[in-house]
């Protein structure tokens, strides 16, 4: 062991002699020149465009105030001055500084205020000479020229939080990262790669020269399937309505428009939303942050009758010719399940059952099929699971089953619940996008496609409707009859020369009390009015679209949603209609 100690002593004495005496002068010279710092250079984020190339998300230069700790003799004093110049809360500044300091490497500027107004910029510029630790950093900032019009689709970027930085080593303090919408799902594609710049400084930290070592790589652009013009048109048509409208290209699954009202200005989030602004938005009873097309699930109402009819045909419970007598309701035990038409529809076949949306007919179908056969049909038709659209937080909706009820309520499934399910009430919940996709599949040959938001995405077939070709054609024809027939619930959207089909629906909000039963819509308090559904397709010259509108508290299906859907087709087929 003595030898080990001797060896240690000798080796290191020799090494020290070599470094400090033999090459000492050389290293001393190097030390003198050792004044190089490395700075990150931000890469601009990829742009987002609509299908025709119109810009939807761009980068603007923004000015941030940063501090370089190593250049400061007295940080609290510097922060105090910043707070005085800009009239900011000092403790807030200290908090920002303390929170970020651990994440900043030596000599890296740490951002204190992410975006400065021009007035603030001027004040700071006037003072920086005597405060070398304060630096103005330019970095690209995201801006959304369309603001609320596409906020739900595009989402927004904001400063990366603690979790995001821990999970992604490429992110550093003050970096923007996609939080919602396409900005979130396409983050990897949109984000570029940061560059590295070598900066030579003197002993006081002042910059003498700079040299780009690794140039930053710009993020890739993204072109959306959205047609900005159409989106804007629908947005106007929605007026003050609360709800959503979706336009799909049936054969590709491309989303041409996705409108959710009310909306919010996504630009507000980019430079950091103040706590009070955030609270206002969060507590707004109209929930502007909610993307109603994919995050809100409603009872489908009569729209679901299409699925039940298809299921009855596939399961051979009924043929198109089978008739049911509607006396105005369906008696089950001692309870009468009423048809919306109190006077009764008389003898109804499946076509009339759909065209006039006869509840009694579907009570009969539901009773014959039962939940055990309706459940798989609905799931195979794309309900009860997310569509897979490239947006975060999509709701899966809900298709109830015997097992689900047992688990959820610890209760058996009752026969009456089959009837409610068959007319799309009860536990059933669907998102507008699920309905639009189902509708598209009815007319595109039964292919359930993933709704695509990217213009260059190939059609992605996820499943097929559980329907034979002839049964599907039959359902499509009933939708056409719903528009063209004199008693069809969708007759108000008819357009000459365009093949249109539709199905209306009403999603009950509360079981209307008897006192409202016979009143006109305007006399019912807003929050008690039913939600109005309308799903439709339109076809001309080989172009086919599926359009769905869901108007919250819009009352009966056709009345509120009809005019909007009609306007959309007039717009889509403007050339053909001239």
């Amino acid at each position, binding site marked *: 062991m003595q030898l080990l*100690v001797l060896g240690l002593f000798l080796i290191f004495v020799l*090494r020290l002699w070599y470094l*400090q005496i033999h090459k*000492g002068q050389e290293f001393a010279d190097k030390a003198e020149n050792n004044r190089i710092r490395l700075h990150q250079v931000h890469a601009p984020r990829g742009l987002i465009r609509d299908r025709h190339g119109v810009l939807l998300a761009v980068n603007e230069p923004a000015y941030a105030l940063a501090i370089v700790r190593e250049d400061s003799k007295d940080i*609290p004093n510097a922060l105090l001055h910043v707070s005085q110049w800009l009239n900011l809360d000092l403790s807030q500044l200290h908090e920002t500084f303390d929170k970020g300091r651990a994440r900043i490497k030596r000599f890296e500027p740490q951002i204190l205020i992410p975006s400065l107004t021009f007035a603030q910029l001027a004040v700071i510029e006037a003072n920086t000479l005597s405060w070398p630790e304060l630096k103005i950093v330019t970095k690209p900032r995201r801006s959304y020229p369309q603001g609320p019009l596409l906020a739900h689709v595009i989402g927004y970027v904001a400063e990366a939080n603690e979790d995001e930085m821990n999970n992604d080593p490429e992110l550093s303090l003050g970096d923007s990262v996609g939080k919602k919408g396409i900005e979130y799902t396409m983050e990897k594609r949109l984000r570029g790669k940061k560059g590295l710049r070598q900066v030579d400084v003197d002993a006081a930290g002042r910059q003498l020269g700079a040299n780009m070592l690794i140039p930053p790589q710009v993020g890739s652009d993204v072109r959306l399937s959205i047609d900005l013009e159409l989106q804007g048109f629908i947005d106007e048509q929605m007026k003050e309505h609360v709800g959503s409208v979706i336009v799909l290209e049936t054969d590709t699954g491309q989303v041409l428009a996705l409108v959710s009202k009310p909306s919010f200005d996504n630009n507000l989030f980019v430079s950091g939303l103040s706590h009070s602004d955030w609270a206002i938005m969060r507590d707004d009873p109209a929930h502007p942050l909610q993307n109603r097309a994919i995050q809100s699930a409603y009872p489908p109402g009569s729209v679901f009758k299409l699925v039940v009819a298809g299921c009855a045909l596939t399961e051979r419970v009924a043929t198109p010719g089978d008739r049911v007598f509607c006396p105005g309701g369906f008696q089950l035990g001692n309870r009468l399940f009423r048809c919306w038409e109190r006077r009764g529809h008389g003898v109804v076949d499946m076509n009339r059952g759909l065209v006039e949306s006869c509840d009694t007919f579907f009570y009969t179908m539901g009773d014959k099929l039962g939940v055990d056969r309706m459940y798989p049909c609905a799931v195979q038709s794309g309900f009860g699971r997310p569509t897979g659209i490239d947006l975060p937080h999509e709701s899966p909706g809900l298709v109830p089953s015997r097992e689900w009820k047992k688990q959820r309520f610890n209760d058996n499934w009752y026969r009456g619940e089959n009837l409610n399910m068959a007319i799309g009430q009860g536990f059933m919940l669907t998102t507008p996008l699920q309905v639009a996709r189902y509708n598209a599949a009815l007319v595109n040959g039964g292919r359930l496609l993933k709704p695509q938001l990217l213009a260059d995405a190939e059609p992605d077939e996820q499943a097929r409707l559980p329907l034979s070709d002839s049964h599907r054609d039959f359902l499509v024809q009933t939708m056409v009859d719903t528009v063209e027939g004199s008693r069809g619930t969708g007759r108000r959207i008819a357009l000459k020369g365009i093949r249109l089909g539709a199905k209306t629906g009403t999603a009950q909000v509360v079981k209307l009390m008897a006192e409202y039963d016979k009143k006109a819509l305007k006399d019912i308090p807003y929050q008690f009015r039913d939600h109005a559904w309308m799903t439709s397709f339109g076809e001309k010259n080989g172009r086919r679209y599926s359009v769905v509108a869901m108007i919250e508290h819009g009352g009966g299906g056709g009345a509120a949603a009809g005019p909007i859907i009609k306007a959309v087709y007039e717009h889509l087929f403007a050339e053909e209609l001239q």
Partner: protein
Amino acid sequence: MTPIDRRLVTHFNWSLAGLAFVLFAFGVANLYSASGFRMEEGLTLTSYYRKQLYWGSIGLGGMIASLLFDYRHLRTLAWPFFVATLSALLITLFWGKTIMGAKRWMDLGLFHFQASEFAKISLLILMAKLLSMEHEKLGWKKLFSFGGIGIFPVVLIMKQPDLGSALSLLLLMGGMIIFRGVKGPVLKGLTVAVPALLPLGWFLLHDYQRQRIMGFLNPGGDPFGAGYHIIQSQIAVGSGQLWGRGFLEGTQSQLRFLPEKHTDFALAVFGEEWGFVGCVLLLFLFSAFLLSIVRTTAEAKDGFGSFLAAGIFFYFFWQIFINMGMVLGLMPVVGIPLPFISYGGTSTVVNFCLTGLALNVSMRRFFFKKS
């Protein structure tokens, strides 16, 4: 508690204790220089040198505690200690605090506790107990059973990941086993097997660890990445020349080009400010310190004490060897601190406790009572 015996005082190894304190004083002075100008620390942290003083006083308490009892009691405590450390390591792995991507610390509210430091002590005690029970040189079977015990803490620490501590544990164990002696064929086998297994270890390393080794082999290849520490610390040490730049005068450390200057690279600050003369003096102090422990291994009254002292020797020896080798560019960058010189709470306390344990063995060398 042993009744006070006059011989305990007369046989107290004052030079060993004195050397530890002189080294610690050097360390604190050096930290004062390394952290004196860190104005930004004034916001929330007290300066490192003050914290180090505070840790030193806790260490002094630990040192006194480690020499008050008869070290032979540790024999019965060896296994419980070991099991307790393993559990602490497991807890760290699952619920530990993540700092700079590694889970090494347990948050105990007042301070962060680094279980891997205590793993070194408990493994040392356990090995001393096991080796002192062997009456002949070790064969393959014993070697593997001892190695098998030691591999648990090593693997747990590797997982954190803390390559430096895992390596120290392995070297500590290896040193103690070689000190006990192995049978001829085993020795021959090992001299062939260990170099052959080294390349295998490459595949167990993390990317950043591989980069450090590549950086060591070719520091110029990536001067701002993997090779940065190596180049910068050599520049700092080298520019100290014969007499050094003087206390608080180091430009490299004051301008903060030097990374980790208060922890693993503290020697670089020292080298820059005190030059060749100061460094050789420091080396001399370390050598005297180590030799004093070596003497304890020879004088100890029983095998257990002798192996304890040997373990303590290797504990310090490897740290000094690896840390100096790294700072002076003779070895890849491994996160191992320099005893008494580098800043570090847990390690300072452990260093003092182990010094205390060596003193304990040394001052009880004239007890002839067999246990």
